[in-house]
């Protein structure tokens, strides 16, 4: 069996100072700039990556941010030309990269389907036969003649997904595209991708989610700062990646300790408010502690804990006896009476309060 994708010694170099090269003036300045300085701005997004994929291989590309995952997809899709090494592909390619981009904003969905299809290399009759299917899948039946510029980003992504997946490709390139649209559409698009797996399609899939890669892929590779760190069966690669992304145990212990402390603090605060309720009920309603706790739905096993908290509050804030409570209640009632007598004169009310 011949490989559908053959990457050998692929290297991708980017010049970070490229942007300064945009005008003639900068060009001439750069001509005289010291060569070493230019070299410093070079950045190798990929170095010496080699692997082969055969029909039926579904490769998950794993790696941290900036590992070169998207770069490798674009190099295989032919968007980037390799700086060193070669990329060989065989068969029809369906690149699902940056789905919402590349549309003509003034064009309607209908016109964009033909234009976009043409760019992807579809033939006119093919688009004619698939047109309704694309619109239906993208759920845009009511917006066929609306210019794309009035679409939401979700609608654009859906349309992009529908057009790109209208073919039965030999090579399918997925750059985290399974996170398009709402939950319903996500499920639909994952089903669609899964249905394309039947047969001999070769898949390249980039994701941060190991679970998703496990679900979809049978092979995997790990990229680390542009280097190919591991390549092989998903079951061999997954533990390596798990280990790679695992934090060191000290960090985890520290984080768990903080979380535990927060939980305890919260629990204590909650108990305190309940304990205050108990005190209020026993004072005002002539209930025993047990009756109050039962009324508050506290399980019997926790009675002792709450009694301790009640005692703690009474110790720290002074015991509020029944007589004191009644006195306080009487004072409150008197204040209400005064307000009732002179409801409009607020000044009197405040002076009355301060006299007390």
């Amino acid at each position: 069996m011949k490989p559908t994708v053959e990457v050998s010694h692929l290297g991708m170099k980017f010049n970070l100072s490229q942007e300064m090269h945009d005008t003639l003036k900068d060009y001439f300045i750069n001509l005289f700039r010291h060569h070493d300085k230019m070299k410093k701005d070079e950045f190798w997004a990929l170095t010496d990556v080699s692997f082969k994929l055969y029909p039926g291989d579904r490769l998950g590309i794993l790696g941290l941010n900036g590992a070169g995952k998207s770069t490798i997809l674009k190099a295989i899709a032919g968007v980037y030309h390799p700086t060193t090494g070669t990329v060989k592909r065989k068969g029809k390619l369906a690149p699902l990269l940056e789905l919402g981009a590349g549309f003509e904003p003034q064009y309607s969905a209908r016109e964009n389907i033909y234009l976009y299809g043409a760019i992807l290399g579809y033939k006119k009759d093919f688009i004619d036969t698939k047109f309704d299917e694309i619109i239906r899948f993208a759920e845009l039946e009511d917006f066929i003649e609306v210019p794309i510029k009035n679409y939401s980003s979700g609608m654009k992504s859906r349309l992009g997904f529908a057009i790109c997946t209208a073919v039965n490709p030999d090579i399918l390139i997925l750059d985290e595209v399974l996170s398009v649209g709402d939950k319903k559409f996500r499920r639909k698009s994952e089903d669609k991708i899964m249905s394309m797996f039947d047969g001999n399609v070769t898949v390249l899939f980039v994701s941060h989610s190991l679970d998703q890669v496990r679900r979809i892929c049978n092979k995997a590779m790990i990229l680390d700062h542009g280097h190919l760190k591991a390549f092989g069966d998903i079951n061999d690669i997954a533990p390596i990646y798990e280990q790679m992304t695992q934090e060191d145990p000290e960090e985890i212990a520290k984080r768990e300790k903080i979380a535990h402390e927060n939980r305890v603090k919260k629990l204590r605060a909650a108990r305190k408010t309940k304990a205050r309720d108990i005190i209020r009920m026993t004072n005002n309603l002539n209930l025993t502690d047990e009756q109050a706790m039962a009324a508050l739905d506290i399980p019997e096993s926790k009675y002792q804990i709450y009694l301790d908290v009640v005692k703690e509050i009474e110790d720290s804030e002074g015991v509020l006896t029944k007589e004191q409570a009644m006195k306080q209640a009487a004072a409150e009632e008197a204040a209400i009476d005064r307000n009732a007598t002179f409801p409009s004169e607020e000044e009197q009310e405040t002076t009355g309060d301060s006299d007390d």
Partner: protein
Amino acid sequence: MKKYIKGFYDYRFLLSELVKRGIRLKYRKSYLGIVWSLIEPLMTTVVLVVVFGALFDRLSDPTFATYIMCGRLTFTFFQNGTKGASKAIRGNAGMIKKVYVPKYLYPLSNVLYNFIIYLISLVVLVPVMIYSRLLPTGHMINVIPSILWLLILTIGVGMILSVLDVFFRDIEYLWNVLLMIIMYLSAIFYPIERIQKHHLMWLLHLNPVYCIIEMFRGAMIGHWVGWKVCSYPLIFGVVCCIIGFVAMKKTQDQFILHL
């Protein structure tokens, strides 16, 4: 070479879609649409004839309208085609970043859609020639090579500009200035007899656009302009095309890094 022709054949649907897009978007949302490609040159020619006819005392000569129309139509296509082509790569950055497509298709499609609009606008020459009381002569056959030479020249220059523009954004402004110089060196709205004896007349003959306009006028008004004027723009255009396509092929892999 065979590979490229096959590649071109594979992408003919895309090319036609890109050309269609250019024409559609140009006249989108205007009530008269493509009819403007007829009305606009007609109206501007009327203005030019009145202004420069009065200035150069040519209002009594009915052929002056044809004279101006030939120059104006030719130069307008050259101007729109090259300007459009120079912005083509950057204008299609969104597509270039997603899918590999031979990059020359973008400037080429830009020139071609302007060419189609140009061909349509040639229809206005019929009423203008009737007004000028000119009858078609055997020299009329010369219209076909002059249009073809113009297309080749515009594709070549457009291709070179589109490559340069990716690396140097200055080209857009620089080209506007150059276009103005080319316009004044093309004798579009002044009668050529006025400067025929001038010692800088050779500058006009170096300008391929002027030579094409002369060919075109000769065909319409009915006189032969000589082999030199007829062959120079073709050679110039072919050389530009070779430079343009080679430069495109050599640099197109780096385009993405500059977009």
